[in-house]
């Protein structure tokens, strides 16, 4: 793409280099630590499913038992597979049941025993990765057999709390034109330190992310994709305390996109920063393998901070998400960096400012499938004004060549969308695409006009902030409230007790295979 904003390539390179410098220490931290969820994800890849009668997954029971007995400093794999082999267990499930009852004495195997445990663990985990590879190939096959919709993809949300209600709603939305269906999770799932099991019919303002729910919805969307001759993608949310496990389940059940932000859980859910960065890296390695497009959550910053004042924090976060994503093996085409149309419509030139921000991001990340989020903060209940604002959002989206448009509802903040709200929203975006879909090719901001100057100003502010973050350290910056105006110290928040420093001889078969390919 030829630039429209006259961005200085040296400055853009400088911004990326500063993001790398800021992120590198955190990556080093992630490489030398593990978490309970990373270890549970290893067990999930090895095929351990199901839960005890209280609904606690066997991966949690087994990981907890290993941790109590020998710790997780060497990973769960060595002690677990050693017990599996020496105890003569037929499978991990049987081992987990006994371990949950305190009947298994774990040890850290040495020498030939350790080799045997490593070999057996690697064989089991390999099967999980083989399934992920097969699902990726199946996606390619389905896209070829149906068709890949042109961008921008229309992204719609379903959230009834009941997977069996979600399915017909998602199919209806696809028939109405949705290219991507996102199933919003139950409020608070990100704070659960386990992944619920099975098909679920009750949730709070959303539906639980479970492997079975993933499978049911993907199957239903495959049916409707064949019916429409267009591949309908499925999105869910990896954020929270179980990022690694949910990423594994998403890969195993062929989800197509996953919300996965490097800082969302820290800022908005008070999850411990160290826990988040470790979990994030592993989850992204799995997404990379699965061919899943991540969606980052920068739009959230603008719901707390002012969208003009904090525009540069969005760019900084995107650069960090890009650095962490590439480091974990994601291709640029898998980086669905997020941003949002959240400037107060009372601000003069607000649409020009939105264009400047959206075009800046388009040019900074030319190969990323950018995800553009509609207005929420300034949707007032005046549904008529809201419909107009959504049309301007759609217009900014097509003018600046955004890749994924989350469709705004005029009843945003009032209720979960009515059938008619969704239909009207789609009518809105269809009109804008039909009327102005090619406006981008004629949109040439004056080289030193308001839009171009504003874009360069935001880039400059982002570089300044990245420089400050680099000198004080990313964890300190987060602790001081740099993002989303919320302070999150590195030793605070949920889930820190699930972080373990790796000892010499730490073994994680999944990481070994994922690092090789990334």
């Amino acid at each position: 793409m030829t630039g429209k904003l006259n961005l200085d390539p040296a400055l853009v390179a400088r911004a990326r280099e500063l993001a790398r410098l800021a992120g590198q220490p955190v990556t080093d931290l992630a490489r030398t630590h593990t978490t309970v969820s990373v270890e549970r994800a290893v067990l999930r890849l090895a095929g351990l499913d199901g839960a005890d009668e209280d609904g606690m997954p066997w991966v949690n029971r087994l990981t907890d038992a290993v941790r109590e007995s020998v710790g997780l400093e060497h990973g769960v794999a060595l002690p677990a597979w050693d017990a599996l082999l020496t105890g003569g267990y037929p499978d991990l499930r049987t081992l987990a049941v006994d371990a949950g009852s305190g009947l298994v004495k774990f040890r850290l195997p040495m020498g030939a025993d350790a080799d045997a445990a490593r070999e057996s663990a690697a064989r089991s985990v390999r099967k999980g990765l083989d399934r992920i590879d097969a699902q990726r190939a199946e996606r390619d096959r389905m896209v070829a057999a149906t068709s890949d919709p042109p961008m921008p993809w229309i992204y719609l949300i379903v959230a009834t709390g009941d997977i069996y209600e979600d399915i017909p709603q998602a199919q209806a939305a696809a028939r109405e034109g949705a290219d991507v269906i996102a199933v919003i999770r139950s409020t608070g799932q990100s704070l659960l330190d386990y992944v619920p099991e099975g098909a679920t019919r009750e949730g709070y303002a959303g539906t639980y992310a479970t492997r079975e729910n993933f499978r049911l919805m993907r199957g239903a969307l495959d049916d409707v994709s064949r019916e429409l001759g267009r591949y309908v993608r499925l999105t869910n949310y990896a954020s929270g305390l179980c990022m690694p496990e949910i990423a594994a389940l998403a890969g195993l059940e062929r989800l197509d996109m996953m919300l996965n932000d490097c800082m969302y859980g820290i800022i908005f859910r008070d999850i411990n920063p160290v826990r988040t960065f470790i979990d994030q890296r592993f989850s992204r390695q799995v997404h990379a393998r699965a061919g899943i497009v991540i969606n980052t959550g920068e739009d959230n910053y603008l719901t707390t901070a002012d969208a003009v004042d904090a525009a540069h924090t969005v760019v900084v976060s995107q650069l960090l998400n890009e650095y962490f994503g590439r480091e974990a093996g994601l291709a640029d085409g898998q980086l669905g960096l997020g941003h949002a149309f959240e400037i107060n419509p009372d601000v003069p030139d607000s649409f020009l400012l939105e264009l400047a921000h959206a075009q800046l991001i388009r040019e900074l990340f030319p190969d990323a499938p950018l995800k553009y989020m509609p207005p929420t903060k300034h949707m007032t209940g005046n549904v008529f004004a809201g419909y107009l604002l959504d049309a301007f959002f759609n217009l900014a989206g097509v003018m600046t060549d955004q890749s994924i448009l989350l469709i705004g509802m005029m009843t945003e903040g009032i209720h979960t969308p009515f059938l008619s709200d969704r239909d009207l929203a789609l009518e809105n975006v269809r009109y804008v695409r039909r009327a102005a879909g090619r406006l981008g090719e004629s949109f040439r901001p004056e080289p030193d006009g308001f839009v171009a100057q504003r874009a360069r100003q935001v880039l400059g502010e982002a570089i300044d902030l990245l420089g400050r973050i680099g000198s004080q350290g990313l964890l300190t910056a987060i602790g001081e409230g740099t993002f989303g105006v919320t302070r999150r110290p590195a030793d605070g928040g949920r889930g820190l007790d699930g972080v373990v420093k790796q000892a010499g001889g730490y073994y994680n078969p999944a990481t070994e295979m994922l690092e090789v390919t990334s």
Partner: protein
Amino acid sequence: MSLTGIVRPYGDTTGDGRVQVSFTLPVPFGDEAERARAEGAALQLAGKMGLDPAMVVHAKGMGPDFTFFIVYGRVSHLVDLSAITVAEREFPVLPAAEVNLRVRSALGRKLVVVGACIGTDAHTVGIDAILNVKGHAGEKGLEYYREIRVVNMGAQVGVADLVARAMAEHADAVLVSQVVTQRDAHLTNTREMSAAFHSAFGLDRPLLVVGGPRFDPGAAHDLGVDKIFGRGTTPGEVASYLVHALAAPSGRPGGSGGMASPREGAA
């Protein structure tokens, strides 16, 4: 216009009674017969809503089974302004900036809130919706308020731990969420909690606020707490209540520096 008289909706002429409504009916809008039938269905509903005459100005099929309508019409109803009673809330709901301002000017420091789910209740949905920045119903949680310091202890917190933490943090208010109601656990837990605070702090106890979907909002006094919030409460309401109870503007009782008497907030 009189505030005690009789009025009708205003379209473009006084007294014309004209309104606009939109709705969806689960009826198909396919062939001509179906379309006529769908419009008839919309007109029937409009008539029962009191629109007479009514006109379907827009009808659109949505999928095979639904039709969306926009209807204009004249309502026959009269609005009697003298018969309106406005339910008075004991406190005004304030924007976040105003909450922060009042805390700053009345307390001269941050207002400290300690929150928890007590007993065996693991449902942190309610307390997190009120406390987390993420918030609820389009409103940011209390963490978002610059002048409120939030300590969220999470789920399954023992009453003794809650009292100790409230003391250590010099809590102005304690927020407790209770979702599980098996064998009235929410009531038992709340009474145990309030008794513990009364005995540990005496009259200087923090404000005690309880929330959950199954509480009777009028039972605060009976349970020994200052305020009960029910289903659908937003963070803004809670923040506004805290300010009302703890940081009243100077000139009002309890607003002159330091902590206001918790009693002031009792419903």
